[in-house]
């Protein structure tokens, strides 16, 4: 196995030398999943050849004990005194063959497993790499569970294809062929008899794998999928289920899906039960033995065959049918693995957000949208013809109904997605021409849902500035008003979120503000729709934010009247367009959409705050 390890480490080296370029490696969508797999397996070619070679020898060696019994028969049944030496030689040859088979099979299977492990690791790394490069907009249509299903589940599913299929396929081919050759050499007539169950079995298997059956198999998979979906719905909506009584629809739907699946399975297997049992019978050792012994008896009765020639048949004929009996299950696994490989291929071929060929340097912090349009894959335009300039040091407030495209517009600034038409410029340079590391020195963001990692507090704060030291982290934590809370935690800044401590919504917000403070970028994108858990927390977050925003160029998705009133410029959006733009007083004087919205807002809750000013 030491050799196998050596092969692996060399293979690793080559992988790195290739530059790990998934762009060239994974192939375009045109590449079939099989091609993708073959390409990924290329570094392990030598190991895989070894797997096949070892398995071939092992399979042949596995026949040795059986042939030894045959030879023993010839020695013992030969007329005249028994040749003791020849008898014992046959015994030891048989035993040696068995030993060889076991050792080689272990080596071959072991290498296959190691290759599988390596492949899984490199596939997962490739996937992670690609996930780190695809446009963030790509994530908006996919749940993290779905993505994890590919990175974990689908990669796992390849296990059978890599670790078992080559070994099983090799022995399924080598053993019957070698046995067939040997038997034909001994007696061709009885060999034909031994082939009867093979042919019958193959024909029956074909029927079992017919189009109809495969379609039904897929339908069963879908029925299973419906249970999964119904159970997610059932569990996610459990509070609704409970509040609105035991007769909850979701529970009913789940039960129905479960019954439908069980019924489907039962009719599916009932439909095939006769055929499957017949196939199993035809391929079973008792039936094969019955046939060859029947044929043998007839031949011997007719004096057409010496008795010693019968012996190989009950021993080896069974080896002809065994692989066919195993065929169905092996194929199921291979099909499943191929479907997984397709999903992996699809994910690897998502085009990454391009990095510039000739990097440009932004001059200043002026942000400019020029004729920007944006649409998701579906083609429904989210933004249309946006022209907007954020002058350095000014605050621009985005307002408008939900679905107007405010978040999408804001997310173009940190280049979560690229516009589908027009361009976004920072300091005169197109965002697409600015290397991402440089871009993030200029632009930071505080968004609605704060993502915390299960890692230390300090690590979470320094996420965007990995090189920051502890003093810097503590300084921003202080400014963000979270230092004292952290100090009170069991392990201070090393407390692991989700293990040592849980953060409340307000605390998470302040941590997010600390992150942005640490980046200290001149341009800030801010989504005000934050969880202001309560008045006190709100006040704390306000204070932290006030420290953060000072002097920066801001694009704010505004939800608070104060922000709107104090902004240098208010941009009103509707259905992906800018419908009004100007200062607070200008827009009120215009008496358009903004003025109407403002009045509606003041009617609720706003007036009290005004009184307390």
């Amino acid at each position, binding site marked *: 196995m030491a050799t196998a390890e050596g092969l692996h480490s060399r293979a690793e080296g080559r992988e790195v030398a290739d530059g790990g370029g998934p762009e060239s490696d994974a192939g375009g969508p045109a590449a079939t999943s099989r091609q993708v797999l073959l390409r990924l397996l290329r570094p392990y070619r030598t190991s895989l050849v070894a797997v096949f070679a070892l398995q071939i020898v092992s399979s042949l060696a596995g026949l040795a004990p059986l042939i030894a019994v045959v030879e023993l028969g010839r020695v013992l049944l030969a007329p005249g005194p028994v040749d003791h030496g020849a008898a014992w030689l046959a015994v030891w040859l048989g035993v040696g063959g068995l030993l060889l088979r076991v050792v080689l099979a272990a080596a071959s299977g*072991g290498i296959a497993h190691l290759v599988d492990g390596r492949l899984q690791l490199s596939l997962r790394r490739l996937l992670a790499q690609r996930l780190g490069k695809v446009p963030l907009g790509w994530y908006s249509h996919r749940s993290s569970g779905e993505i994890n299903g590919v990175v*974990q589940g689908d990669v796992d599913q390849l296990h059978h294809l890599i670790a078992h299929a080559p070994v099983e396929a090799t022995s399924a081919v080598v053993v019957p062929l070698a046995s067939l050759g040997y038997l034909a050499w001994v007696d061709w007539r009885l060999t034909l008899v031994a082939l009867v169950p093979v042919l019958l079995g193959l024909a029956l298997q074909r029927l079992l794998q017919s189009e109809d059956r495969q379609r039904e198999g897929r339908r069963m998979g879908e029925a299973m999928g419906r249970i999964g979906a119904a*159970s997610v719905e059932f*569990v996610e909506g459990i509070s609704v289920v409970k509040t609105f009584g035991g007769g909850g629809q979701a529970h009913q739907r789940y039960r129905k899906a479960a019954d439908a699946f069980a*019924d489907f399975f039962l009719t599916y297997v009932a439909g095939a039960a006769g055929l499957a049992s017949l196939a199993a019978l035809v391929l079973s050792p*008792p039936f094969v033995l019955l046939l060859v012994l029947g044929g043998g008896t007839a031949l011997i009765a007719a004096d057409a065959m010496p008795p010693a020639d019968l*012996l190989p048949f009950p021993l080896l004929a069974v080896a002809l049918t065994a692989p066919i009996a195993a065929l169905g299950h092996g194929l199921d696994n291979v099909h499943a693995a191929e479907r997984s490989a397709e999903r992996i291929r699809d994910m690897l071929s998502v085009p990454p957000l391009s990095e510039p060929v000739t990097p440009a340097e932004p001059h200043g912090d002026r942000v400019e949208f020029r004729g920007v349009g944006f649409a998701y894959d579906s083609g429904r335009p989210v933004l249309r013809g946006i022209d907007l300039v954020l002058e350095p040091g000014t605050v621009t407030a985005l307002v408008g109904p939900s679905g107007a495209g405010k978040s999408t517009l804001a997310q173009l600034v940190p280049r979560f997605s690229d516009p589908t038409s027009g361009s976004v410029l920072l300091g005169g340079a197109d965002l697409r021409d600015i290397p*991402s590391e440089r871009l993030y020195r200029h632009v*930071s963001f505080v968004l609605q849902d704060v993502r915390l990692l299960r890692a230390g507090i300090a690590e979470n704060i320094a996420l965007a500035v990995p090189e920051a030291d502890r003093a810097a982290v503590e300084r921003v934590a202080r400014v963000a008003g979270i230092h004292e809370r952290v100090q009170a935690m069991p392990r201070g800044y090393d407390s692991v979120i989700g293990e040592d401590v849980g953060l409340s919504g307000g605390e998470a917000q302040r941590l997010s503000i600390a992150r942005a403070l640490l980046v200290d970028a001149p341009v800030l994108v801010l989504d005000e729709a934050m969880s202001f*858990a309560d008045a006190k927390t709100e006040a704390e977050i306000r204070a932290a934010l006030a420290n953060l925003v000072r002097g920066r160029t801001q694009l704010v998705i505004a939800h608070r009247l104060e922000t709107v009133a104090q902004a240098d410029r208010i941009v009103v959006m509707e259905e992906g367009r800018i419908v009004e733009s100007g200062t607070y007083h200008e827009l009120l004087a215009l008496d358009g959409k903004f003025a109407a919205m403002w009045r509606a807002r003041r009617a609720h809750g706003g007036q009290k705050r005004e009184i307390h000013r």
Partner: protein
Amino acid sequence: MIRLLLRVLGERHSGPLRRTVALMSVCAVVEGLSYALLIPLLRALLDDDARAAWPWLAAFAVAVLVVSVLGYFSDKSGFRTGGELSRGLHHRLGDHLARLPLGWFTPGRIGDVSGLTSRSVMEVMSVPAHRLRPLINATLIPLSVVVVLFFFDWRLAVAGLVAAPLIAGVQRWTSKATARQDAERARSSDEAAGRVVEFVRAQPVLRAGGRTGERFGLLDDALHEQWRSGRRAALSGVPGMLGLTFSVQAVFTAVLALGVYLTLDGDLGAPELLAIMVLAARCVEPLLSLADLGGIMRVSRGELERIDAVLTEPPLPRAERPAVPAHDGVRLESVGFRRGDRQVLDGLSLNVEPGRRVAVVGSSGAGKSTLIQLVARFHDVDSGVVRLGGVDVRDIDSEELMSRLSMVFQDVYLFEGTIEDNVRVGRPDATFEEVRAAAAAASLDEVVDRLPDGWATQVGEGGAALSGGERQRVSIARALLKDAPVLLLDEATSALDPESEAAVQAGLDRLMADRTTIMVAHRLSTVESADLIVFLEDGRIAEQGTHEELVRRGGRYADFWRIAAHAVA
């Protein structure tokens, strides 16, 4: 394994499973015993005495027929048991989940449960349907053959019998050794899966730090560890596999060598020896397959244990003699509640008269949300009592309790279906007019008018087709339609766009009218309008009173109010 399966299945499904196991065992034993006929048959043939062979051949043909018929019925029984098993497990899981306390359903559990109902159940149902028969065959056929051997040569039979304890011992040892590694691998896979999800969710902030792919150490380390533990698990299986194959081989060698020795000594006829070796060779493959079969069964067992773990999770205890609340007041008496090692509520007492509106305020982590969850019995209290209408909530039948409560929480879950279906969840037998009226009161009608298919618009999984504000309106309409006397409200924390906010606020005002309301309030205007304000701090009530009283008192709430009002200005 079978015992665990029987327990998880419960009494109702255990009968068919027992019958299946019995049928499969009988089939395997008959097949093994039928091989006894091969010895005289082969002896006759090898002696070149075909005439003596015919009767034995006929007998063997009959035996094969019997085995096939038995095999057909055991397969059929296995399939049927598998199908019914999936139905039974799904139903048991569903019924049990419906009885678990709401507090059990943390976000992480949702993925677990969908895995349980699909992959785990599939694995378990394959046991009777596909996996049991090969396992039973691989065990019982060789054993029956050894029994047969006793009738022909007891010395060879004894040599063969040695295999049984040897193989059983090796299997036991292997499963112990690999179980630990398998658990370790499962753990590191879960860890890696968690890191993948985290990596995906935190993309924006990770990008900003240039932490993509392999430069995100937490994920890469987890993937690497997953690989290493996978390799350890694979390697840990090797000694077991080698041990098994060597034991099988040793026994085969012993039988062969002993047989040849006896034959050469003249104690055993050559045809007998050869016939016996044909049988012995028949046993080698099944015995070798035990290693793989054992591994597959361990996987099934692992999945079964996961199902069992959920099924043994204690549900909320049911009241033995359910009582009916006398009115709609809510009362908490020295309630204590712990979560992990944190005392969330500590001797909290609060009385809410029927029809009154109480606002709960306080800093985050003070226990506000927990308080209203306890009223709805998401969890049971650790000390003290929560009463509705004078009756301990634990003594109220859970459907009765739920029928008296309406909940409007921050995260609104919509079921796949139309908007109308989702509102109707509040009261399935409501007329369309009632649904419309509730929608109008919740300002949902204007949303419906705007949607392409109106009331028949599909909301998508989890309500993805609607915005946050629109979902909240659906939730309010549901609660209005349900018309329960007690309202628990966790005011949305994420700010909505002004238009939605105004509509949601108007809907809430209508909803709160004339109902006993306990709300976690985040808007100053809602707080002020409450009949009673409760200020929570560290799981206790620090102050309570009306807004005016509390501001005049100049205590904690007043400070709080000043900070908030000042921040706003």
